């Protein structure tokens, strides 16, 4: 029996190749999209789920209980002394482990005493217990023996291979950190490379005790500052109450922090939340919010649904041609149930083909997706949950798309079917198919509008005026050591001698940077610190010229190597209650309880010191040479090549122990929006798929109508209708359907995207044009689709059509 069905099915598909291909293509693309979404979601939800103790591991994170100016503060890090404080008096805490990440650190390796290899890397300072919390495997050594003594270090296998050729070679060798004779680390252990799905990208690790002998030693006892890279993990007892622990943490912060920081609090953030909560961040600087996961799941389901709708439309369109077979089979003794099974198994066959094609498409598309998202996801067909996913897709697609056509086809009256007088009315609700088309186009309108808004937000980011000049500015790193710092002025003068270089400024960071240093301060002899933190921009006097910052009151500070005067931004003046910036001039800024005290001499116009996600905050600028870490070099764009060759030579000459690297400021700023950029690429793809599938569906529906009206078209032509009349006859209602779909989609898309845009302080307006482009675009594409099929019908030979009746 099944054999007979499959023979019919197979030959039928073969005979209607184009129809089958249309069906398979639509479904395959829909399924492929959902497979890829499945892979992405599975990857992103697998982060750090391989640790045995994952249920009981928490990160102690910082936040502000309630902040006066509504600006919330969140950080994944805590003050250094929190870890030791948790060791006693907290019976529910079984283990505590601290870890500090320092990024962009230069390390050097001596090879045969003469040759030197230099690398830039992230160094993790780790307490040994970190490895009893997390499952990272040791190839050689163990955490207790390697990570206890100061200046003892471990490498990951591939890092050891990169540095020393093979990992066995690395053992016992040394690496020199920051070119400092006090920071020579000995490699005593090797760990296996960490999996790709962990937020701990461990490559170079040194013992935490190393910090006691480094420039960080004072910070280790500081309860006030929060370093977002200094994390503390704890293992809680299985039965411990997390909410009770959180209360104790708040009390702990209160107990140790000075009274003016009463709002600072700590909480236990579950390990399972770290990859998803962008407020607290992680060491990969890549979070994947639950909202994004939901959005992707919805898109996946939508695309599948659209593909199923196509299937239904195309299958019922074909029903007219199958009616005779239904009649014959009924006359030969088939009952309705058997016929329904037959048609369902045909759908199953098509779905199976589509599934196979979809797996192929996914295979081909995955590398591109990995490049786009900078991930290394894999398609492991044989993994159990992937197979279950495929099975679920197979069953749900088969039933969603097959049930309706099966019910309709198997319900034909044999007498009527054999007279081939099956018409749209018998096949049932043309209105149902119209509703399905409306549904499809609504979904693709939502996708398209969403995509256009994400893209226009991206363009907004790229083109927004940040309040400072970011074009043709090169950033060059200034090494950290004092010997290099002594050369700053000398190198700056050398740079300025090049004819392609216009201005040079040495500073802690560019006006807009991902590395920020923030602190509150005491203003105008107040004994309380400000309720907001100011972004500290240490910079020389040429900073303003180089980045084109505009002065609106007072004057710039005089050139100096240490702070003697401050320049602040407009927002600082406003936050302190000065609507007229002139009034703030002469007032004193007191940083860190008198460590630095100086008057404000000027106010600059606001500029975006963070990404455009957040509003402009307070910025204070002052010269302090020992904090400088980067040169901003404004160049003549035409001289770019020459300048870069020149600076490389200059750097290797004057900073021979350091790795030379440069970056363009505008590119660095664009990198702030990497996640949005990736998202917008992804949405573009999904929207294109959505449109494609809808058009396939539309094509199917027009084919259906054309087939149904062959006779009518034939008669009309015999009566003298022109092809354009016929095209109009067949396509007029689709414009209406698309407009209805748009009216359904527009409010939903508006609402959803309005919500999304709330994530950004600076956002593109939801302009009328975006909606107009969406409707006009889909209209044009739909007309082309419909028009092609309608013209084909209109040009068909009427005599032939009529004779077939």
């Amino acid at each position, binding site marked *: *029996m099944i054999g*007979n069905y499959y*023979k*019919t099915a197979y*030959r*039928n598909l073969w*005979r209607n190749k184009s129809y089958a291909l249309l069906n398979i293509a639509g479904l395959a693309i829909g399924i492929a999209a959902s497979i890829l979404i499945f892979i992405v979601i599975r990857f992103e939800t697998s982060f750090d789920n391989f640790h045995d103790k994952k249920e009981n591991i928490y990160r102690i994170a910082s936040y502000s209980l309630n902040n006066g100016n509504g600006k919330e503060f969140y950080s994944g890090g805590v003050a250094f002394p929190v870890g030791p404080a948790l060791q006693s008096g907290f019976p529910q805490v079984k283990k505590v482990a601290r870890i500090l990440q320092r990024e962009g650190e230069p390390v050097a390796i001596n090879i045969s005493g003469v040759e030197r290899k230099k690398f830039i890397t992230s160094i993790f300072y780790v307490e040994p217990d970190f490895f009893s919390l997390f499952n990272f495997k040791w190839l050689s050594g163990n955490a207790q023996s390697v990570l206890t003594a100061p200046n003892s270090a471990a490498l990951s296998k591939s890092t050891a291979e990169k540095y020393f050729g093979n990992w066995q070679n690395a053992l016992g060798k040394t690496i020199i950190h920051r070119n400092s004779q006090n920071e020579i680390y000995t490699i005593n252990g090797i760990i296996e490379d960490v999996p790709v799905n962990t937020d701990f990208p461990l490559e170079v690790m040194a013992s935490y005790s190393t910090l006691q002998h480094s420039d960080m030693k004072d910070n280790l006892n500081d309860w006030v500052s929060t370093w977002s890279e200094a994390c503390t993990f704890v293992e809680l007892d299985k039965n411990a109450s997390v909410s009770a622990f959180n209360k104790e943490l708040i009390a702990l912060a209160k107990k140790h922090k000075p009274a003016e920081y009463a709002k600072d609090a700590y909480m236990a953030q579950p390990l399972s939340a770290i990859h998803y909560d962008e407020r607290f961040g992680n060491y990969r600087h890549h979070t994947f919010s639950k909202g994004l996961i939901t959005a992707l799941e919805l898109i996946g389901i939508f695309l599948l649904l659209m593909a199923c709708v196509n299937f239904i439309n195309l299958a019922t369109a074909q029903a007219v041609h199958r009616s*005779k*077979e239904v*009649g*014959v*089979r*009924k*006359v*030969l*003794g*088939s*009952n309705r149930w*058997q016929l329904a099974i037959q048609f369902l198994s045909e759908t199953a066959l098509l779905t199976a083909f589509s599934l196979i094609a979809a797996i192929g498409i996914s295979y081909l598309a995955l590398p591109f997706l990995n490049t786009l998202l900078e991930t290394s996801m894999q398609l492991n067909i044989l993994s159990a949950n992937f197979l279950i996913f495929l099975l679920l897709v197979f069953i749900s697609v088969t039933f969603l798309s097959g049930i309706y056509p099966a019910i309709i086809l198997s319900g034909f009256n*044999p*007498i009527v079917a*054999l007279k081939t007088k099956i018409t749209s009315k018998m096949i049932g609700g043309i209105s149902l198919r119209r509703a399905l088309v409306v549904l499809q186009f609504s979904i693709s309108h939502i996708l398209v509008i969403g995509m256009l808004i994400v893209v226009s937000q991206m363009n907004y980011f790229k083109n927004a005026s940040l309040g400072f000049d970011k074009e043709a500015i090169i950033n060059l790193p200034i090494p950290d050591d004092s010997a290099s710092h002594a050369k700053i002025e000398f190198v700056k003068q050398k740079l300025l001698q090049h004819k392609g270089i216009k201005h040079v400024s040495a500073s802690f960071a560019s006006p807009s940077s991902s590395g920020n240093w923030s602190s509150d301060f005491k203003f105008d002899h107040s004994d309380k610190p400000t309720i907001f933190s100011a972004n500290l921009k240490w910079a020389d006097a040429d900073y303003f010229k180089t980045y084109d910052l505009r002065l609106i009151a007072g004057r710039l500070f005089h050139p100096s190597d240490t702070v003697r005067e401050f320049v602040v931004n407009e927002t600082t003046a406003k936050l302190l209650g000065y609507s007229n910036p002139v009034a703030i001039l002469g007032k004193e800024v007191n940083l860190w309880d008198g460590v630095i005290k100086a008057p404000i001499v000027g106010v600059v116009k606001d500029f975006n010191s963070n990404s455009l996600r957040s509003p402009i905050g307070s910025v204070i600028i002052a010269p302090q040479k020992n904090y400088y870490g980067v040169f901003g070099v404004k160049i003549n764009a035409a001289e770019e090549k020459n300048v870069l060759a020149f600076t490389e030579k200059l750097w290797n000459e004057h900073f021979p122990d350091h790795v030379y690297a440069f970056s363009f400021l505008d590119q660095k700023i664009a990198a702030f929006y990497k996640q949005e950029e990736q998202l917008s690429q992804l949405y573009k793809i999904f929207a294109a798929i959505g449109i494609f599938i809808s058009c396939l569906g539309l094509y199917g529906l027009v084919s259906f109508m054309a087939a149904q009206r062959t006779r009518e078209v034939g008669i009309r032509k015999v009566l003298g209708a022109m092809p354009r009349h016929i095209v109009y006859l067949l396509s007029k209602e689709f414009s209406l359907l698309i407009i209805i779909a748009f009216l359904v989609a527009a409010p939903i898309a508006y609402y959803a995207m309005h919500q999304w845009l709330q994530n950004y302080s600076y956002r593109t307006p939801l302009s009328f044009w975006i909606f107009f482009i969406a409707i006009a675009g889909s209209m044009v594409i739909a007309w082309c689709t419909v028009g092609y099929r309608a013209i084909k019908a209109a040009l068909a030979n009427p005599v032939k059509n009529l004779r077939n009746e």
Partner: protein
Amino acid sequence: MIQLEKISKWYNTNGARNFVLKDIHLDIEEGAFLSIMGPSGSGKSTLLNIIGMLDTSDEGNYRFFGESVFDLKEKKRTELYKKNIGYIFQAYHLIDELTVYENIETPLLYQDVKGSERKAMVADMLDRFNMVGKKDLFPSQLSGGQQQLVGIARALIAKPKLLLADEPTGNLNSKQGEEIMELFKKINTEDKITIIQVTHSEKNAAYGDRIIDLLDGRIQQNIQ
């Protein structure tokens, strides 16, 4: 075998009853060969479809081997139909996607005949109709007469007791038509299968041992 009592069927057109069949009384013995004649639109096909259980009447009673057909549940009626009735059409109505062999085999699939037995039965049928060499061809590769032979083979394969044929020779030339009629005669006499055929041709009708003439839904003439 078949008893029709007071069978009437009508369509409502503009509120008025438009009778297609009116008070049909008909008794058909097992082993009979009945020809139904009558002008176009007189209700021949409708009557045949009612006998063939593909259609129902609006009034009247239909007994098939003593069972009251209209009172049977759908499932029971399909069983009765599957076991006893074979159908042949003017337009052959073969399934285009299936080969000659598969077309003939299909009714057996619906009757759950086992594979080996099925093979034997189809082979037997192909042999009997001299179509062994054509078993792998598709309907479109056959002449009209050959297609109708496949249609007949398909109708006979499940060994029905009653063969219904609606203008089986309507699309054939007279020589092909004659061959089909000879075949019917042979089936009727040798296999003792009851045959009811609708035909427009006096000559073909004469192959039957009984002719009824329909006019406007009534039996005009009943020639034994």
